[in-house]
């Protein structure tokens, strides 16, 4: 199809703005020297060796664990709402989707600060909980708060892909299953859920990836009591000035994420080697 040629401008763009910067990052990762001065660079894998220590691997492990749990929670909370919205009439559906997206246009830092007001010792949520008798639990500066913040931030990214797939689903299949005697639970688990898997995979990807490299949420809501890999990388570039170590960690993180994505794409039979999209 002659339309293919249309893609070439983007290839040029990709080459310039994505490939070259990637090569730059790899160059930084495999060298050491004064980060601000190219002429001092010498080839070395010492930063990779430095990372392979209990201290830094522990940081990676904690980040992955947190990202994994928050992704699961997003899935558990997001799927039902996607289902509910997809069953509404188109007019209402569109409004609901927009309502889902609008909060993301408010500054992220400000919204996270607002959670501090809600979750603090004198915060509104804490007061609500004690009014129904639950006293003394700390809602802030712990893993729970961080998870809450992450779910808050990433939930729309889980809901939208699943919603998109659910709306495209062939209603006849559902009706056929019901006609053949399946009850609601069976219809869901044997027909709807499997068909929505591509959306679920996309949602998981769109949540897990940023969740692994997040640091603002864990910083503000976790009281900075625990460094995550996102903090570490950010620190290297914006405080310590060791761009080599920072790039090394970025490459390691990238490889890790690509590997996880390769694993999850095994679950998506429809992809057939590269139809890959967000949703």
């Amino acid at each position, binding site marked *: *199809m002659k*339309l*293919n*040629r*249309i*893609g*070439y*401008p*983007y*290839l040029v*763009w*990709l080459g310039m*703005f*994505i490939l070259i*910067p*990637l090569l*730059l*990052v790899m160059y930084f990762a495999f060298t050491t020297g004064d980060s601000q001065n190219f002429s001092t660079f010498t080839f070395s894998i010492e930063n990779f060796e430095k990372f392979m220590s209990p201290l830094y691997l522990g940081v990676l492990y904690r980040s992955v664990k947190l990202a994994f749990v928050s992704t699961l929670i997003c899935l558990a909370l997001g799927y039902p*709402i996607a289902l*509910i919205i997809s069953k509404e009439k188109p007019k209402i559906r569109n*409004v609901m989707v927009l*309502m889902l*997206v*609008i*909060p*993301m*246009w*408010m*500054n*992220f*830092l*400000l*919204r*996270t*600060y*607002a*959670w*501090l*007001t*809600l979750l603090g010792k004198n915060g*509104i949520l804490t007061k609500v909980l004690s009014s129904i008798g639950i006293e003394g639990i700390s809602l802030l500066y712990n893993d729970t708060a961080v998870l809450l913040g992450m779910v*808050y931030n990433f*939930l729309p990214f889980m809901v939208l892909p699943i919603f*998109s797939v659910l709306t495209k689903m062939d209603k006849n299949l559902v009706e056929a299953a019901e006609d053949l005697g399946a009850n609601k*639970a069976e219809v869901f688990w044997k027909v709807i859920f499997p068909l929505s898997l591509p959306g679920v995979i996309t949602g998981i990807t769109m949540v897990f990836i940023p969740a692994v*490299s997040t640091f603002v949420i864990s910083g503000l809501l976790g009281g900075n009591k625990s460094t995550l890999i996102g903090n570490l*990388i950010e620190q290297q*570039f914006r405080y310590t000035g060791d761009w080599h170590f*920072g790039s090394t960690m*970025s490459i390691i*993180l*990238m490889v890790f*994420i*690509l590997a996880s994505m390769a694993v999850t794409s095994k679950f998506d039979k429809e992809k057939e080697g*590269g*139809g*890959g*999209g*967000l*949703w």
Partner: protein
Amino acid sequence: MVNRNLKRLYTFLIFAFLYAPIIILIIYSFNDSKFRGDWSGFTLRWYAELFRDREVIRVLYYTFAIAITSSIISTVLGTVAAIGIHGMRGITKKSILNLNYLPVLNPDIVTAVALMALFRMARLQFGFITLLLAHITFSVPYVVLSILPKLKQMNVHLAEAAMDLGATPMYALRKVVIPEIMPGIITGGLLAFTLSIDDFVISFFTTGHGISNLSIYIYSMARKGINPTINALSTLMFISLVALLLIINSRSEKSKKIIQERR
């Protein structure tokens, strides 16, 4: 199995969850105190101070200028790219796709520093153009990834049929392909706009003097403390956005009705 009231309650809870912080922001924009610790009384002084702040207007202007321009360009570039990628096969397709994914995979700071280094190597003067290029770079992948599944879903023979019937490739593109993938294009555009409006790190390292956006303005206050005029600003932005969307929604309702009546 699941009755309607339960569904309603759940939907309400989820939206309450999403909007709770925004409501807090709005409430505290009227708080007569620099601190979020306590409610000290109702005041409009932050709104008054906001209108006297010369920098906020400038910063707001650039935020929207960049967001709108970059999302339009990214959407066009992304659509064209998606169509091109869709037609590819095999290893080429896989590697292009993975390359495309990179800005999505990388932490913002890495993309920021890499782009900054690139622009330096190219001896570019930092300013509006470099900022715009940076925003387009991190937005296009999301646009592409929004449109590809729609292309996959589209009947591949539609465009061919159009061309068999005598349409030129451009005509087939405009009248057949684009309408089919329009939902993906719109989603991609919205996503690009959202990412651009809230970006700090990439913007900070790729912009030049005189060009700043709202995120940079806000994050720069991290050491001293966020001035409550920002809460006032956010409240106004929120109200405007909601109003804008309501207007657009009601206008599209009107035009649909008119079309229906004409039939």
